[in-house]
């Protein structure tokens, strides 16, 4: 493992640096942030100073503090949602592949219909009916996103399912759970891990976009997409505050993508 890390290309190292930094900041947010998440401490849109490292936001909260907590909230929410999406998606995908027949037909047709619907429009309609709260947000995005995970894990499991060792386990009389747990899952792990990175990026951008539209994480909780929205008025005065949270979103997604690229390269077995 260490040897692998030492051989990693520069792009992957940059990606890992970005991701680790973001995770550390998210975990130790209360220790790093100089002020409270929602406390008003200065004037509107103050420029950077020793007191406020990168200035203040549209109602005079410290922008650095908001960035730190915003990262914590957005990343945690995206991570939980992606985990849920993977649990549901891969579980159903494996079952469809192993069981086959009408179970597969039923699940696949349902997934087809959800995927025929543009994701953002679907999410907006659900949120308009149920209202935007954290649990609704997590479940809605996780269910919509799990359709993609389902497609991949079903395809991967289909390939594994026809192998001799699965056939042998079947003939031994092993049950559905044993097959999934001991035969399918270990072999399906590498493509699923790479997909996890990609899905995380997608979910992260999706949540940021919803918050930007004012329908995601609700104020006064800090989050990067919402911060762009709140401060968007500043840009016409030549104050480039909205670019800071928007840039942070961009940097994190690029970082994750760099790692995924390296991982895909490794697991595809191509070496230079």
């Amino acid at each position, binding site marked *: 493992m260490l040897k692998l890390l030492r051989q990693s290309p520069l792009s992957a190292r940059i990606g890992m640096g970005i991701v680790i930094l973001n995770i550390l900041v998210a975990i130790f947010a209360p220790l790093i942030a100089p002020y409270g998440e929602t406390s008003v401490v200065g004037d509107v849109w103050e420029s950077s100073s020793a007191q406020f490292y990168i200035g203040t936001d549209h109602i005079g909260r410290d922008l650095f503090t908001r960035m730190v907590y915003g990262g914590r909230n957005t990343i945690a929410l995206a991570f939980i949602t992606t985990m849920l999406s993977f649990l549901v998606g891969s579980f159903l995908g494996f079952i469809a592949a192993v069981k086959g027949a009408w179970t597969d037909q039923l699940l696949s047709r349902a997934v087809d219909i959800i995927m025929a619907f543009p994701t*953002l429009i679907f999410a907006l*309609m659900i949120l308009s009916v149920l209202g935007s709260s954290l649990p609704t947000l997590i479940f809605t995005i996780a269910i919509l996103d799990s359709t993609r995970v389902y497609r991949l894990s079903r395809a991967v499991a289909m390939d594994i399912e026809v192998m001799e060792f699965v056939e042998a386990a079947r003939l031994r009389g092993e049950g559905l759970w044993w097959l999934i747990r001991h035969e399918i899952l270990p072999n399906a792990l590498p493509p699923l891990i790479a997909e996890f990175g990609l899905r995380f990026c997608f979910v992260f951008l999706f949540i940021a976009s919803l918050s930007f539209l004012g329908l995601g994480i609700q104020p006064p909780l800090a989050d990067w997409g919402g911060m762009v929205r709140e401060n968007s008025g500043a*840009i*016409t005065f030549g104050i*480039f505050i909205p670019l800071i949270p*928007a840039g942070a979103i961009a940097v994190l997604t690029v970082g994750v993508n760099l790692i995924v690229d390296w991982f895909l390269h490794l697991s595809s077995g191509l070496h230079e």
Partner: protein
Amino acid sequence: MKNVLILIFKRSGASLITIFIISLIIFIGVELLPGDVAETVLGQGATPETVEQFRKALKLDLPPHIRYGAWLNDFVHGDFGNSLANGRPVAGLIGWRLGNTLFLALSTAVIAIPLALLLGMLAAFYRNTFFDKLISTTTLSFISFPEFFIAYILISLLSVKFNIFPSLAVTEPNMGLGSKIYSIILPSLTLTFVVTAHMMRQTRAAIINVLASAYIEMAEIKGIKRFRIIVLHAFPNSLSPVINVIAVNMAYLIVGVVIVEVVFVYPGLGQLLVDSVAKRDLPVVQASGLVFSIVYIFLNLLADILSMLSNPKLRQSQI
């Protein structure tokens, strides 16, 4: 040819069924609304009589399946009901905005499609060179950026720093074409960046896939000139995947406009949808969601039909 027609017929039928199921989902979704629409809209202070009257006006007193039939029938005839927020007919609200959205998407497509195809082909032909790596890295970053990040960078550069283009895409019904195009330059540039990045990467992959096949190698071994190989051997075979890429990205574009419309306060369908979701103006949400879905499904259908027509192999197989 008869085979293809049957295939297209089947595929269109599947799309129709999908649209039908989606209309059902949209209708049931609104039915699931906690509480009563009438009470939610009229508020706590409404007398039972006004609530009753409002329910009659919205036909809420009828059973669900009859209301679904009536709603679908009205929708097909172009009557989308009235907005809960201002009582105006939804069809009027949607018509003009849908036109605006399609105009924005179309003007983006006109720039993005040729650009993406050209870049994709160049990157495929000069693959693994510095040029290819530069383009691939740039497009990968653009895919990772949220749309509003690109939009705000363009605004701060082109409209705040240099003051060339307006940062708000204000459009009025009786505007000339020239000023209309001028006002949507920034939003359409933003969309161009996002869509070109996606399209170019897929075009590159599709063409490399064709170039790696055995018949191209055979042609090279036979000593056919490179130009002739590209025009007569590679191009016809990459047509099908490339057409598919274009149509799928157009579908993506229709949905991608939502964020960009909000950033530039452009009066399109996406902006209307977001506003109505915030106001919980359900008839407008239903209608604009359904319109968006129909356009999206139609473009995906078009992608499939075009790739069936341009790929002889697909004409033989079953769906």
